[in-house]
């Protein structure tokens, strides 16, 4: 119930932003429209909670940005220099995150940072298989992920 309401508000906001018209009529229309769309598509209950999120989200965002730039520089160096320095491989990372949303978020974050790529999630959702350009030590790699993205995702989504 609450979730639906939130999602509804969110969509209304997106609508208003997209159309750029902050008038009452536009907001009302956006609300009705998104209400209708949610009615069309929602099945079952969704689980996200919204209110404690904001500060964590901001911190998460900057962490992600940092990772992104760091890795991009690394890749730039790799691509820009004539010799290859890669030590690629596929690593199965055991997961603590459980929900689909969390897993997806984690996987996407990993993919978005250059040099790594989420290939697949095991059927029982316990292992995330990650391809990485630089694997010196499997355990280090796993730990980096678990302490980095996974921890933060757990924070913002619990």
């Amino acid at each position: 119930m609450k979730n639906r309401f939130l999602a509804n508000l969110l969509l209304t906001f997106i609508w208003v932003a997209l159309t750029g018209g902050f008038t009452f009529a536009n907001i009302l229309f956006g609300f009705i429209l998104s209400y209708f769309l949610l009615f069309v598509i929602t099945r079952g209950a969704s689980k996200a909670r919204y209110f404690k999120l904001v500060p964590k989200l901001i911190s998460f965002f900057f962490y992600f940005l940092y990772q992104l730039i760091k890795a991009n520089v690394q890749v730039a160096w790799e691509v820009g220099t004539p010799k290859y320095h890669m030590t690629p491989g596929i690593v199965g990372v055991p997961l603590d995150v459980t929900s689909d949303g969390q897993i997806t978020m984690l996987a996407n974050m990993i993919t978005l940072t250059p040099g790594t790529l989420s290939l697949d999630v095991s059927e029982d959702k316990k292992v995330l298989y990650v391809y990485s350009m630089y694997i010196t030590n499997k355990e280090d790699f796993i730990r980096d992920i678990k302490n980095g993205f996974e921890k933060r995702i757990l924070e913002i989504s619990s």
Partner: protein
Amino acid sequence: MMTDTIIGIIATLGTLFVLLAGVGILRMPDTYLRMAVTTKAATLGIGLILVAAAVYFNDLSTTTRVLAVIIFILLTAPVGAHLIGKASYITGVKMWEKTLMDDLEGKYRKTGKNISSPRNMDHHRDEL
């Protein structure tokens, strides 16, 4: 003039990342490496270029649209990479000879006509 400079800088950065992706996809020795290098570099680069455009036009509706594009790219690019990566792996696209390890090896089992995810479970959807 000030804005122009900002735009110039952001656009330059973005373009450099795009170029990086371009060089990367050409240079990297195997499919997975190409993917690992390019998808993200391009995403960052395009994001920056779009920001430059948003700054240039400097009005709410353009900015929201630019934000929408960026969000979309952030959402779809990794999913796309994941899909192609998985597909490549399943179809046996060769990995670079210097690849160190492969935890996925042997994890995909053929079950009838479908290849399922690793550690195949039994329930089965009607797929598109």
